[in-house]
């Protein structure tokens, strides 16, 4: 157990459980055994930092507002949703509680909710964060009872004799068992009856409305009783398939989209027997030897948020206009708090189309170097040199106006322990280089560290971690 990891393996651990590792952090943890590095990740994340926007007028009872204030309300709501997005994005880039935030990001996609009510959205996000490394069962219960979920999947309209099946269906299909995994349409109908009466009050607290609840007997997944919503959640957690489904998704997120069935079985048992302790599951994965096998390293396509945060973090990039961050999220097809639907972002190859890829490849140069990927070949003729310079100049003037990002290169370069070409490649890029990339790199000059790093980050290899 007291084994040590190579630099590449440490970087792998930090990319999958966070957004990469800084040079100075790497120097520090390199001396620690694997177990201690992992302990460190958990202890850094023992605390929780909730998102806390000032909602001002949105906190007030609409009846106390003037007519003008009410008109402004809708506009304000939309604005606050965007503020919430930016606040979280900045927290992702600055936090020390990296593992917790990374798992919050995972469950943000698992419990994918798209709302126009910022208070509910923030509340749900904090519920997820507070349970992200703790217990999945507790999280499921609290999320199911949150105003955000009750609103989004219409459980407020789910009443005795007039049921709305939306939540009952999704809780099985997307949150616990997974689609077509051992439940029937009848199970959904019966579960919907059990969830009747679940609602929330003006203060945003959960309430059980007796008069809307169907107190009759229900049969769900083979069990019969006068079930309430809480009982359905408990029944779903008793099903081992739920442990398997969640483990499978976490494995895809942290390890590989190709799932090893032996590992999955071991992990599922561990997770289930530990009563859904997320920490137990994560430790089982991270403390294994197979997690660090070459077939898992550098094979995952970074999500837009992983890419954006991974790029900004080491340079502490400051954006003069935070609208740029929203613009980039939109163009890259992942806007925090705005998943495409209740099934969330699909991830993997679906992040990539021709327009997102070209922007992703340009992103490092755009945020860190005014859009310029300066490339000097030894065999350049004077003419092609001039052409390039003209091209760069045009790009620079366009980007400077549009993006207005200020990266801290001095800080980055000062803390960088590596200077030679191969070391920089190994530090910046996780996967093995393609033949094309090898050819290109062989002709590049690593003498100008800044230019060389931009070039490495502009390779398709940088899209992987």
């Amino acid at each position, binding site marked *: 157990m007291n084994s040590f990891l190579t630099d590449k393996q440490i970087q792998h651990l930090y990319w999958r459980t966070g957004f990469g590792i800084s040079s100075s952090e790497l120097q520090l943890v390199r001396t620690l055994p694997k177990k201690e590095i992992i302990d460190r990740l958990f202890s850094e994340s023992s605390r929780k930092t909730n998102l806390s926007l000032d909602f001002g007028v949105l906190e007030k009872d609409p009846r106390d507002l003037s007519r003008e204030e009410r008109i402004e309300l809708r506009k304000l709501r939309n604005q606050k949703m965007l503020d919430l997005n930016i606040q979280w994005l900045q927290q992702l880039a600055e936090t020390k509680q990296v593992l917790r935030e990374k798992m919050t990001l995972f469950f943000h996609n698992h419990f994918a909710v798209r709302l126009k009510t910022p208070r509910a959205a923030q509340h749900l996000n904090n519920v997820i964060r507070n349970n992200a490394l703790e217990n999945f069962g507790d999280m499921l219960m609290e999320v199911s009872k949150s105003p955000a979920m009750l609103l989004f999947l219409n459980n407020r309209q789910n009443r005795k004799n007039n049921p709305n099946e939306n939540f009952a269906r999704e809780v099985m299909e997307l949150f616990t068992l997974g689609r077509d995994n051992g439940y029937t349409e009848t199970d959904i109908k019966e579960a919907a009856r059990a969830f009747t009466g679940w609602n929330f009050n003006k203060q945003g607290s959960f309430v059980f409305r007796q008069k809307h609840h169907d107190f009759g007997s229900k049969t769900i997944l083979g069990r019969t009783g006068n079930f309430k919503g809480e009982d359905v959640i408990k029944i779903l957690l008793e099903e081992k398939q739920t442990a398997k489904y969640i483990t499978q998704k976490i494995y895809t997120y942290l390890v590989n989209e190709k799932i090893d069935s032996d590992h999955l079985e071991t992990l599922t048992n561990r997770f289930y027997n530990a009563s859904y302790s997320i920490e137990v599951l994560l430790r089982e994965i991270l403390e294994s030897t197979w997690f660090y096998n070459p077939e898992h390293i550098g*094979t995952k396509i970074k999500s837009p948020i992983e890419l954006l945060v991974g790029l900004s973090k080491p340079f502490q990039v400051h954006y003069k206009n935070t609208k740029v961050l929203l613009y980039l999220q939109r163009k890259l097809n992942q806007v925090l708090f705005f998943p495409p639907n209740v099934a969330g972002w699909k991830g993997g*190859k679906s992040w990539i*189309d*021709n*327009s997102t890829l070209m922007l992703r490849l*340009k992103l490092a140069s755009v945020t860190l170097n005014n859009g310029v990927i300066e490339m000097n070949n030894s065999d350049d003729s004077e003419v092609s040199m001039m052409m390039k310079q003209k091209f760069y100049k045009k790009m620079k003037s366009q980007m400077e106006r549009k993006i207005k990002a200020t990266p801290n290169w001095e800080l980055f370069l000062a803390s960088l322990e590596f200077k030679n070409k191969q070391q920089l490649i190994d530090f910046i890029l996780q996967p093995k280089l393609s*033949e*094309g990339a090898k050819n290109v790199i062989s002709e590049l000059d690593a003498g100008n560290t800044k230019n060389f790093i931009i070039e490495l980050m502009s390779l398709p290899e940088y899209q992987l971690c």
Partner: protein
Amino acid sequence: MNRRNFLKQSVFASGITLVPSFLKGMELLSPAQLSGYKNVIIIQLSGGNDGLNSIIPIQNDIYHSLRPTIAKKKNETLKITDDLAFNSSLEPIKKLYDQGEVCIVNNVGYPNPNRSHFRSTDIWQTASDTNQYLSSGWVGRYLDANCQHPYQAIEVDNSLSLALKGNQLNGIAVSDLKQLHRTTREPFFNKLVNDTQDEMLHEDNQGYLYKTMLETYSSASYIYETSKIYESNISYPQSSFAKNLKTIADFIISGLKTRVYYSSLGGFDSHVNQVNSQDRLLKVYAEAIGALVKDLKKNNRFKDTLILTFSEFGRRVKQNGSRGTDHGAANNVILIGGSLKKAGIYNELPNLSDLDSNGDIKFTVDFRSIYASILNNWLEVNDQTILGTGFDKLSFI
């Protein structure tokens, strides 16, 4: 000068553009081949267009009584039949209609309609059931099954809609062709692409990234170089939607081997004071379509073109409290083309005395029947492979 030489020369003349090796075998259509190369243009009116105030049941008492302030008066419309009239903003469409080039299908929708913009758009774009979540679009699956190149489906927009994403092939999104072309001229990427050979590509994620990069590169060059051949001298309206349609016309007339074009016009979510805003948008839509059709006709390509216009849902029949309408269900779909088999009003008008429990129009035609008809009857491919199940085909084409 024949087209191939023309292309070679223009590539050569563009100077620092390196011609990647894979471009050399690129096919171009000769003028003779061009004729008969069928294509579809798909237009989404985003936000949920109010079909009832677009193609109007002008004699229907329920229509007038449920919409006391937003119903159109007879003298504000263009007559189709005694019962039906166009919104006067749709005058260019009316002209095409009179020439037998428009087919209107009423009551198009799907079972258990979803009233969320996002969800219903996904349903229309993926051709899924209401409770089925698909990650590929119907045009994308057409690419998978029947095409070789990403540029055979082009979206003239910033990013690629789900509709054009397949499981193996994705379509190409082009908003500003020059800008896309400029990105592919970036010296660094240029070098990388030229140093990458097809046989280096693996099936893994890294291979996929390189493959997409090469495809973007070749498609961008192909589209850029090929579309230089024709630039329209027809005048289009100033709107950006019209600009997008002009781009599509340039592509078609230049002879791009593209089967499906996709574009959208947004802003139809008319909850408040809808009359002015909807009329304005319909005008933008109709004038742009008018110019597009004129352009295609002039170049003898209209007979090979079919234009499908849809919206993710229609709107509620009863107006709401703010002189607008809320999200509804079934809606009309407009088909425009030079080779329609059945023009005019395809089927029965919406039955306003038999609405669903939300007060919305019930569907009688599944939207996937329209897709199936286009795939089978127009593009001449197997629609079931793409749509999963068989749907009744309509005879408009």
